[in-house]
């Protein structure tokens, strides 16, 4: 028996200089980071305060760090594709052979959706939702840490595929029969499947956690119709996660059975049917779009209300629109395959349901507009991202409705017009939204604001770069260029693709500005310091506590009597109807105890995943056993909370005075 399964030295692509160079660079960066931590003597600090932390705020921050790192990786893939298509015209083959190019576009899609967009929105929900609800943590803090580290496991496995073996060459949707063993015998598809299975469990657990938190843990007095809109969008998103992700897990399990045990769910023969995969994939895939977009819509709602100095216009309408999107997102999946030969009635029906979802989305746009109407709009960085989103997204929505018309879809499906469309909706909504949220909540997380000028520079680079990179793709798409072409023979496409390449370079400048913004802000943190805990004149509860908030968030749980509770209280204090800070009776607070469960489970998950990819069966057994034992140890834990003495809470409160407390 071969102890290492399919793994051998030939799995390392030594003959590919681009890959080896990248791997070497990443290796050097990781070694430098490890050396730096060692030199600083921070290992213990890192382990105690971060890696084993179950504090929702720190977990949120770690999700964001993960997402930002993967954004750089995903973007690198993107700009490599743009460069390849900018040069590989006529007889030229460019610098990427199909073997490598096909992996890059598959990795780009997979990473951007699962390991950038998902951690961004889940990270921001982690950070903000419990504080907005006025509570001290999520419902299951240790499970939250497991979710984070399982997501990180998926990230790790996907990136390991760069150095050992290969990644999928099937596109990020991995349609069979192409992704079946018969046509993709390598380990690429297995890397894809196991990475996403492991990360998917993490996401599902997050969904369960947040649905429970929002439904069961809210500050006294906070009825559903008093929740901030971001919490509503988080609820809708997590309901969608709970309903949609099991479909993806089951679907991938079926494909894995096909690949590992010779089943015939989606094979060409023996009764398999690939159309079932396509159906199930998009029954997950279209709700996924709204899983990503809804929290971003929530952030835009918070930002537009806060920086206009007004309540959100049409709160109930917004809640209704959010829940309408939540339900309608399950009725549209068929528009991803109008070209698969369904009957006219089916196509027409799903064309119209797909358009219907534009109604609540349109309502949201108008409501943000009326939120700014009559306000005093402060053009901070989060507002730039928000207004930038509004004027860009409506055009992305427009091309989306075009694609919902079956007769138009037949002409532009699978073309770069489609590529332009989904970047035109996902980048303005998810990425712009999360950038707004990052700039908005950063002072809450770290106690100082981010630099405004570099933030604005980043926005403008992204905004201009986005249009330059994707508007030409609409044109080339209409000219008949299909997606995923490693080279092409039509020379008239090339000028447009060169323009798109220039756009990608401008986006690169935007990313550099973001990094510079962070560095500059950290160096100038004393000037940017916010001691009030409420730097933006906020409306919701997270601004009523200190920045950064203590592990327990609130010394006393706030009592909520209306929407925008913190704002209302500030108004009453300013009108001298109420005292700003009541005399407080401090009590000891129980907070969840840190636990290595998440980190250790994830270690074993990576081991299992890697072993299964390479058919190292004994190692898979060890990994599964290790994960099971870790979870058993957690179940039989003696104590899961630590008590913060009342004096410590009082001391913190006195040393971090907030102007007004609830």
């Amino acid at each position: 028996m071969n102890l290492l399964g399919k793994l051998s030295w030939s799995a390392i692509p030594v003959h590919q200089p681009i890959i080896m160079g990248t791997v070497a660079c990443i290796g050097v960066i990781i070694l430098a980071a490890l050396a730096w931590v060692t030199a600083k003597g921070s290992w213990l600090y890192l382990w105690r305060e971060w890696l084993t932390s179950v504090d929702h705020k720190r977990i949120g921050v770690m999700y964001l760090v993960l997402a930002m790192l993967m954004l750089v990786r995903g973007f690198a893939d993107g700009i490599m594709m743009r460069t390849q298509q900018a040069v590989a015209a006529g007889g030229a083959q460019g610098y990427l052979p199909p073997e490598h190019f096909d992996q890059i576009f598959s990795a780009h899609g997979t990473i951007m959706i699962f390991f950038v967009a998902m951690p961004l929105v889940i990270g921001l929900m982690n950070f903000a939702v419990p504080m907005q609800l006025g509570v001290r943590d999520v419902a299951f803090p240790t499970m939250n840490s497991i979710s984070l580290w399982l997501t990180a496991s998926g990230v790790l496995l996907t990136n390991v595929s760069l150095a050992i073996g290969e990644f999928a060459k099937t596109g990020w949707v991995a349609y069979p029969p192409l992704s079946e063993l018969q046509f993709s015998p390598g380990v690429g598809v297995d890397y894809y499947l196991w990475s996403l299975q492991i990360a998917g469990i993490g996401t599902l657990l997050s969904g369960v956690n947040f649905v429970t938190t929002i439904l069961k843990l809210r500050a006294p007095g906070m009825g559903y119709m008093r929740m901030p809109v971001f919490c509503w969008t988080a609820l809708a998103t997590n309901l969608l996660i709970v309903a949609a992700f099991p479909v993806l897990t089951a679907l991938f399990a079926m494909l894995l059975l096909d690949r590992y045990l010779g089943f015939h769910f989606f094979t060409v023969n023996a009764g398999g049917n690939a159309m079932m995969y396509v159906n199930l994939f998009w029954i997950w895939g279209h709700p996924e779009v709204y899983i990503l977009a809804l929290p971003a819509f929530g952030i835009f709602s918070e930002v537009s209300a806060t920086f206009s100095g007004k309540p959100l216009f049409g709160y109930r309408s917004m809640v209704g629109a959010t829940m309408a999107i939540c339900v309608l997102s399950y009725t549209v999946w068929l528009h991803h395959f109008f070209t698969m030969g369904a009957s006219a009635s089916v196509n027409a029906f799903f064309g119209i349901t797909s358009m219907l979802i534009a109604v609540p989305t349109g309502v949201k746009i108008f409501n943000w507009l009326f939120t700014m109407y009559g306000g005093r709009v402060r053009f901070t960085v989060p507002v730039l991202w928000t207004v930038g989103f509004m004027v860009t997204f409506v055009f992305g929505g427009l091309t989306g409705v075009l694609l919902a018309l079956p007769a138009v879809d037949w002409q532009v499906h699978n073309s770069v017009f489609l590529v332009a469309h989904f970047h035109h909706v996902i980048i303005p909504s998810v990425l712009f939204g999360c950038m707004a949220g990052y700039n908005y909540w950063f002072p809450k997380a770290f106690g100082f604001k981010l630099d405004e000028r570099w933030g604005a520079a980043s926005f403008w680079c992204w905004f201009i770069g986005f249009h330059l990179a994707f508007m030409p793709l609409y044109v080339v798409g209409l000219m008949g260029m299909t997606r995923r072409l490693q080279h092409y023979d039509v020379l008239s496409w090339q000028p447009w693709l060169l323009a798109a390449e220039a756009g990608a370079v401008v986006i690169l400048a935007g990313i550099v500005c973001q990094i510079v913004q962070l560095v500059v802000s950290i160096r100038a943190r004393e000037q940017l310091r916010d001691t009030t805990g409420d730097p933006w004149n906020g409306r919701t509860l997270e601004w009523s506590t200190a920045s950064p908030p203590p592990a327990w968030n609130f010394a006393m749980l706030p009592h909520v009597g209306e929407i925008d509770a913190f704002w209302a209280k500030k108004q009453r204090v300013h009108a001298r109807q109420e005292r700003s800070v009541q005399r407080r009776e401090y009590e000891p607070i129980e907070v969840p105890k840190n636990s290595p469960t998440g980190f250790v489970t994830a270690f074993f998950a990576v081991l299992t995943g890697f072993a299964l990819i390479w058919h190292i069966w004994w190692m898979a057994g060890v990994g599964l056993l290790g994960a099971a034992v870790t979870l058993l140890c957690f179940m039989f834990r003696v104590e899961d909370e630590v008590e913060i003495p009342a004096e410590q809470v009082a001391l913190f409160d006195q040393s971090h005075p907030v102007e007004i407390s609830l």
Partner: protein
Amino acid sequence: MRYSSPVLLLVSAAALSGCSEGVLDPKGPVAAAERLILFDSLGIMLAIVIPTVLATLAVAYWFRASNRRAGYQPEFAYSGRLELLVWSIPLMTVLLVGSVAWIGAYDLDPPKPIPSSAKPVMVQVASLDWKWLFVYPEEGVASVNHLTIPVGTPVSFELTSSGVMNSFFVPQLAGQIYTMAGMVTHLNLQADHSGTYRGMSANFSGEGFADMHFNVDAVTPEAFAEWVASTRSSGPVLDAQAYAALVKPSKAVAPFTYRSIAPGLFAGILSAGLQPDDGLCVGYPKSMRAER
């Protein structure tokens, strides 16, 4: 952000004027009708979207914090009339565009025959790794990576695949349709003008995908008859053996023709999709599918 709508307009203008190929330059009734639907719905939506974007920019600019002439209404958070308006504008738009979608989906349904006095030409299409096989069952000839059709005559396609999914797409003549192993999809199109149009696979199918394009020659019916006659007189025969050689993966195959085809070839390709050929499932007779 203020550049957004000009950029889009500029781009669409450039696309409309500079484009002598692709979706915006249809050469047949199906593609022309599809372009009309594209323009109609684009027009309807731009009428809503452009004012919305302008209003957004205007409101954001006028109500900037430094503009003290703008009235501050910190309590303005609800208006029944506005709510009605904001729900009805997108709903009306969708009603309108939805009707266009409904009619288009039926009128241009790919399997629907094109009304014509001419008898349709029948073409059976199989996507192979990585080339296209076009079989003319009535003429008894076949060609690889090159499609010849008569102008002004409807062409009726039956499509399948030898293995992975592809998508048959000639943008200037009609929308695309997937090709899937073991299944038949249908597509009808017609060329109204002679010329050479670019066709391709639109659905990624693996390593040789980028070269999976072909030319469609739309020629006069007389020239088509000549082409059939000359094709019949030379080239190899497409039988089970020749098909087994052809179906082996190959890239960037130069076009060639077969002078005759074995009877039941297309049905054979189709049923091959239903028979197993991987090592995990033995016991059934091997089909005419190539082994990998």
